């Protein structure tokens, strides 16, 4: 099962991130990892949370614009050159990464990287064929 990422549109202004996170806090939703991509006026917050559907609903009710996207979480050895090798694999299969970020914790002593591909199913198949371990949603959100 793919990992569900919550993407949230925020204006680049003081207090906006906090007011969004307050909504999640009130619902007792835990953020497992969070990253922000920003341009001049706005940013997109990407996060992996417990109970993503409920989180999205709560944010929408509070007039935030958000969406859920499927991403791939992949285990990568925590040694020099391991990420580079993984990217080589993507190249070989002409898989373009839209964006990527690191998960905050190790799983089974391995680093976990989150990747967003246009065609997630093709990417998943290629990576499994190459022997990578795709981390399941349940492993990530700890439930």
């Amino acid at each position, binding site marked *: 099962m793919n990992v569900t990422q919550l993407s949230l549109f925020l204006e680049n202004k003081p207090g906006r991130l906090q007011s969004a996170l307050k909504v999640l806090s009130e619902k007792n939703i835990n953020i497992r990892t969070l990253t922000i991509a920003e341009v001049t006026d*706005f940013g997109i917050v990407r996060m992996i949370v417990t109970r993503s559907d409920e989180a999205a609903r709560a944010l929408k009710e509070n007039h935030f*614009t958000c*969406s859920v996207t499927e991403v791939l979480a992949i285990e990568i050895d925590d040694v020099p050159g391991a990420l580079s090798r993984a990217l080589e694999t993507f190249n070989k299969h002409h898989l373009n990464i839209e964006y990527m970020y690191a998960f905050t914790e190790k799983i089974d002593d391995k680093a976990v990287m989150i990747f967003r591909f246009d065609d997630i199913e093709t990417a998943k198949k290629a990576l499994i064929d190459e022997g990578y371990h795709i981390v399941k949603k349940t492993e990530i959100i700890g439930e």
Partner: protein
Amino acid sequence: MFNKESETLQHSKLKEMQYERMKWSLRHAYENVPFYKKSFDDTGFHPDQFRSLDDMQRVPFLMKQDMRANYPFGLFAVPMEKVVRLHSSSGTTGNATVVGYTKNDLDVWGEVIARTIACAGGGPKDIIQVAYGYGLFTGGLGVHYGVEKIGATVVPVSGGNTERQLMLIKDFGTTMLACTPSYAINMTDYVEKNKPDFDFRKTKLRSGIFGAEPWTEQMRREIESRMGIDAYDIYGLSEVIGPGVSCECSEKSGLHVFEDHFYVEVIDPETGEILPEGEMGEIVYTSLTKEACPVIRYRSRDITRLYHDGCKCGRSFIKMEKVTGRSDDMLIIRGVNVFPSQIEAVLMENENTEPHYQIIIDRTGALDDIEIMVEVNERIFSDEIKVLNQLSNRIRQRIQSVLGISAKITLVEPRTIARSEGKAVRVIDKRKLK
């Protein structure tokens, strides 16, 4: 064509006719309405000095507030025993304006509506459902008598009660619908939500004449595809006669003005100067045959342009573009006249949905800056920055090519744009504060 002789008049013949009728209309107003006498006298113009249509520039304007100030019958040019019908605007923004009609005026009105129906491909065999409101509003009764004039069958259902509207379309075999474009969309929404078995395509409905409010090409496409009909724009204003001032023909590219009854000019709303054919400005109406309530150079505040394009339908009357805005809303940005509705149209064509937006104009040094804030709703949101950047670039390029100005596009969160009484405030002009 309902009246081929009039509707295909040679240009020179038409101008001659307009000149003769204009002479009568100016004199009729001057001699019978104290308001016109005073306003003409104040500017030093007398109907005797009217030698050609070029003299129109000298005739003073009639403003909306003049009509309100003369509430109710101050602008009538005939005694009340000649007046057989009254209509009135809703008067939500000040005093209502009242218009009267003589028997002859009603005949003319029926004639121009009959032409309108023929323009939209209708004829005596049609069953026309009039879902404009009946009453003081000119829409319902105006269209009603035109339907009878052309010899079609009128279904005078008036507005509202969508369930019944649909039943009549089906049971009576309505072929043409007359209502506001927003009510037509409303009907399709109602069907989608409540009557999934109702299929407009299985009814005899094949066309509609829609007007009484400005609407966009996007709305036309929506009505046409959802109802499976041809949708025509009809235009009019109660001050001039009601519906029947102009209408679209089979070409659906501009509205023919019934110039043998209504004389039209386009002026610069700032200076009042008459603009050459083809230029965008405020359209000004003069009635040529109206008896009860002549209007002389009535400033409609509607923005459009006038042009001849040798229309394939064969009508020689000048065309006006779909009205795109009101001169009250006009903004002058770096010397370019801009209407908020033009920006709205660009936003709608891009996203096929109407996002909330706000236009902010400011001045840095000598230069005007325009910023368009667009609320990011779920339909246009993406988790990828590049998609959102492409969106704002696309909007910027379209605004550049449509309006000739470069605007800054800022994507903002929902509910960022202030609403007043549920409506978004579309324009903030900070230049006025400086």
